[in-house]
């Protein structure tokens, strides 16, 4: 991982300003994406995974906005730009969105139009980012559908999304995300709505395309199995901030943060003894308006000390590329 990251998120804060109060959806998160590597972002519902992705693409909806932090993108020409400084609908951001950073969502049905053929949508995507003749664009669209494993692409290009199965639709989404040959792919729960068998196909496809194109992939999921299968590095998020970040093998075999440890213990596995009870984490995720002070995990933490209720733990380096934010590893007197 000696190479420069292609995308660096630094101390990002994205908040929603609702009438009832402020939701600190993303609250100080930092991580790097590298070409040819997959960063897995995992955490329970509401921890800020999707808002992080939307912040990078600058599509956070109102009343949300990026409050502070940086999102540094190394561009094709070698220059670096901080995406938080660009106007959301300006020319530069529009060419980055879809052009340099591709996006795949969980629900292909809602992101694909029912009124246009998949070919028209795909060709529109290509046209936005490339200056080619109509025929060349159509050829490229067919080529893309072929690349993502759609059978009979020359015919399928004229079908509508509702005529396709969930798995084929997700392939079309991936084709669209890659139409402009981005170097970064953000996939937000790309297989959550799919059967395991179809999920295996799509994960295979993402892996293959990543190798062929040396993509930097940011894979968002709540499924630890998918993370174990796909990620090189892992970010574990809790209430808008990473609690632990490290190489996939260490996260699974030597997790250090109490939340990571609890989460891993509580996941069901096909390798488990039949009828075995699962370890549980006490309590549930706090309501966004009732964030605990100090360490956000302290009300549920089996290892908490008095200090945890008052002082926010700082990030500590505990191994090569492995950091965690927990007082157990800081030198604060407990």
């Amino acid at each position: 991982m000696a190479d420069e990251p292609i995308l660096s998120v630094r101390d990002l804060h994205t908040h929603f300003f609702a009438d009832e109060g402020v939701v600190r959806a993303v609250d100080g998160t930092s991580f790097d994406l590298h070409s040819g590597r997959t960063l897995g972002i995992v955490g329970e519902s509401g921890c800020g995974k999707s808002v992080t992705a939307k912040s990078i693409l600058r599509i956070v909806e109102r009343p949300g906005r990026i409050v502070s932090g940086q999102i540094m993108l190394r561009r094709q020409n070698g220059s670096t730009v901080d995406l938080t400084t660009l106007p959301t609908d300006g020319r530069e951001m529009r060419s980055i969105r879809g052009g340099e950073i591709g996006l795949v969502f969980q629900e292909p049905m809602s992101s694909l139009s029912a009124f246009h053929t998949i070919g028209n949508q795909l060709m529109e995507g290509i046209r936005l980012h490339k200056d080619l003749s109509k025929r060349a664009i159509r050829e490229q669209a067919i080529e893309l559908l072929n690349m993502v494993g759609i059978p009979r692409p020359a015919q399928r290009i004229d079908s509508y999304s509702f005529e396709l199965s969930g798995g084929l639709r997700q392939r079309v989404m991936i084709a669209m995300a890659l139409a402009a040959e981005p170097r970064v792919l953000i996939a937000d729960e790309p297989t959550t709505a799919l059967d395991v068998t179809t999920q295996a196909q799509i994960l295979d496809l993402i892996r293959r395309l990543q190798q062929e194109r040396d993509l930097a992939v940011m894979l968002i999921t709540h499924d630890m199995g998918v993370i174990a299968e796909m990620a090189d590095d892992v970010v574990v998020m809790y209430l808008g901030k990473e609690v632990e970040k490290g190489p996939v093998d260490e996260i699974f075999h030597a997790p250090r943060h109490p939340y990571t440890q609890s989460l891993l213990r509580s996941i069901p596995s096909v390798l488990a003894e039949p009828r075995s009870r699962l370890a549980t984490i006490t309590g549930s995720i706090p309501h966004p308006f009732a964030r605990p002070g100090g360490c956000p995990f302290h009300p549920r933490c089996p290892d908490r000390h008095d200090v945890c209720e008052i002082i926010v733990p700082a990030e500590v380096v505990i191994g090569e590329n492995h950091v965690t934010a927990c007082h157990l590893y800081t030198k604060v007197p407990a």
Partner: protein
Amino acid sequence: MTVLDVRHLRKHFPLRRGLLGRTAGYVKAVDDVSFSIEAGETLSLVGESGCGKTTTSRCILRAIRPSSGEILFRTGTGEQVDVAPLEKKQLRPLRRQMQMIFQDPFSSLNPRMTISEIIGEPMLVNGMTDTTIRNKRVADLLELVQLPSAYLNRFPHAFSGGQRQRIGIARALALNPSLIVADEPVSALDVSVQAQIVNLMLDLQDRLGLAYLFVAHDLSVVKHVSHRVAVMYVGRIVEIAPTTGLFNTPRHPYTEALLSAVPVPDPRRRAQRIVLEGDVADPSNPPSGCHFHPRCQYATDQCRIETPALREIAPGHSVRCLRAEELSLVGVPAA
């Protein structure tokens, strides 16, 4: 004691085409399904989307009328009744004995009723009009699903997904059912909450001797809750076996592929997967012979012609594959 005995259950939905709505064939959503469940036992139904899991459970609960087959249910008095042909009125006294837990606890709870009213409603409907007795029972049920009694007068929107699922379970238990049908009861929940609900369901079963029909697509959860598992493919059971046998020594190629596709939470086990080509067959136009043959890596010419029957090849282990004896398939490693 056998609580539920399903025999040759079929549900064929007419497929209508054109303005006149003429029947242009049938969706064979459930096609000759047989299984039984004992008291205190969990049987899970698994399989890809559209294979007929929900339709099977809706037939059993008689939310819909089966096309044919028997659904023998043991009533509180110990006799077996075939609920398949019964009319609404005849079904009423039986309904309280078989209850449902839903996937989405929120949409199944009336937002304008308090928790106490929600849990008490089935009792009221069934003639338990004494408020004191009913309130006592509601309080007991709340304790059973491990919710504080302080919640009694709150409304559903004030609860998290896991708490709402507990409320749904308490309501399902209100009339002392012997059979619970749970259709994807934990798939909408976060892992930490999912673990709590799975444990609760296991505890309640041990305490109350409930029979569970557990419908799920997540094989990891299924491993934690089931005594036996039935795998469905295009409306048919292709394999049914005790949990350990099914996971460790699957005998149907489809089960093998399903198991191989499950991501295991261990990066050191990035196995070579069997990636099934293509999509699930269309139940209105299934392939000839063995429905699975277009996707089966072991298919022979015979598989395209002959429809395999479900046959027992080891004690309690039945499979619908022509080549079951000769194939040696790979399951998950033993626990």
